């Protein structure tokens, strides 16, 4: 089930589950990964797994992530991803309101 983006804790938990699942596919146990750890540096995910995570985020949250937004600040950690998603939804909502008015 797609989590509501207004619930930061729920979004973070959902992303974390996905990260652990992607790591497990590579034979890596990422259950001890902290939400603030840089995923690539910790070895939890490699570059392809991060791209797979991006694809999952786009599908799950119905977003398009521009190439220029693929930065450590936006997607380096689980916390960063959750924050990015909230910002992205807020921007989308503001744009929608402008269109409506």
């Amino acid at each position, binding site marked *: 089930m797609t989590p509501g983006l207004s619930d930061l804790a729920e979004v973070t938990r959902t992303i974390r589950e996905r990260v652990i699942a992607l790591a497990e596919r*590579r*034979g890596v146990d990422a259950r001890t990964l902290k939400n603030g750890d840089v995923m690539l540096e910790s070895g939890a995910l*490699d570059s*392809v797994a991060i*791209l*797979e995570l991006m*694809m999952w985020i786009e599908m799950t949250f119905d977003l398009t992530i521009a*190439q220029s937004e*693929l930065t450590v600040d936006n997607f*380096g950690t689980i916390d960063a991803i959750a924050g990015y998603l909230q910002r992205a939804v807020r921007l989308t909502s503001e744009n929608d309101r402008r269109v409506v008015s």
Partner: protein
Amino acid sequence: MARPLHTPRVNTNDDIVRLLRVLVKPGDAVDVGVIVAEVETDKASFTIEADHPGVVLAILPQINDMIAVGSVLLWLGTSPDDAVPEASTASAQPVADSRPTVKAAQLLEQYGLTSTEVPASGARLSAQDVEAHVRVKGLSPLAAAQPRPEWPGGRPAASGTPHALTPEERGMLRTVLWHRQEAVPGYVELQYDVAAWDRVAADYQKRERLLLNPLLALMAYRLTQVAKENPRLTSTIVGDQRFRYDAVNLGFTVQSETTLYVAVVENAATLTCAEFIERLTTLQRKALAHQLRWHETSGATITFSSMARWNVTRHIPVLPPHTALIVAHAASSADGRGTLGATYDHRVLTGFEAISAISAVSRQESLP
């Protein structure tokens, strides 16, 4: 003593062949296996080799003559002064070619006819003869036949220019003729300094503030630069010619679930390193989402593949169609050494060229 070299049978259906080229001249000393001439049938061209050593005494037919299989092509002697038997020259006289033309033969096949059923207006049955015959008889083609391929083995997907092979290249091709129309894969590998590459990648990632580790993209980019410097790496064999591609189109393998894609960065050697990485990342994302367009998976002229993420320490990749080299990157071994391998088409490249190419890739040169 003079001994004849006969025109060999190259195809069970062809009793006559056309002499295309003679690669020796009277007075030349030849050894067993030296290519002395090239002939063609309707289907392909073939080389003729000396089957015994000697000095070329005389070459009987002229270029473009139609010559009978089994006729004397040339005489070889133990010394340049050996006499050529006079009577034998008669067997080398050009013969009249009464076979249907190639186009006529195709039409006959298309309509399910034989050459004896169609009257010829000239020495050879022509396409016009067959067309007139089917018109008069009101015949229709048989069930849609597969068109004859324009290129032996299929036409390469990327543009390029055919070049005649050098004698040396022809020699290498000859050694692998058992598999003439398809790539003849060989494999070589070497060990290299993983730590040096890791440092380069880490520095680049930090400097460019990249989310993803650029190691594989940088190595692939390095391969494009190596290929740019050595166009032989981006060549293939089509028929009896080397087909040199116009561009370095870098294929990069991407595994998405159970599907393996070769995503293609077109004109990769013209891109800056940053442009290349961005383009490759975009293609990787599309591949993982199964959204690559046809042109993004077609026309690779050289390829890079890695199975390091699966901790595979050696893999021997299959050559993509019409390419001569695919570089294989693998996981480091327990002692920290990395292995770079290459599957190469031995019709196009020697093992030395393949190992030289991956040796160049293993060095972190020409990178920003």
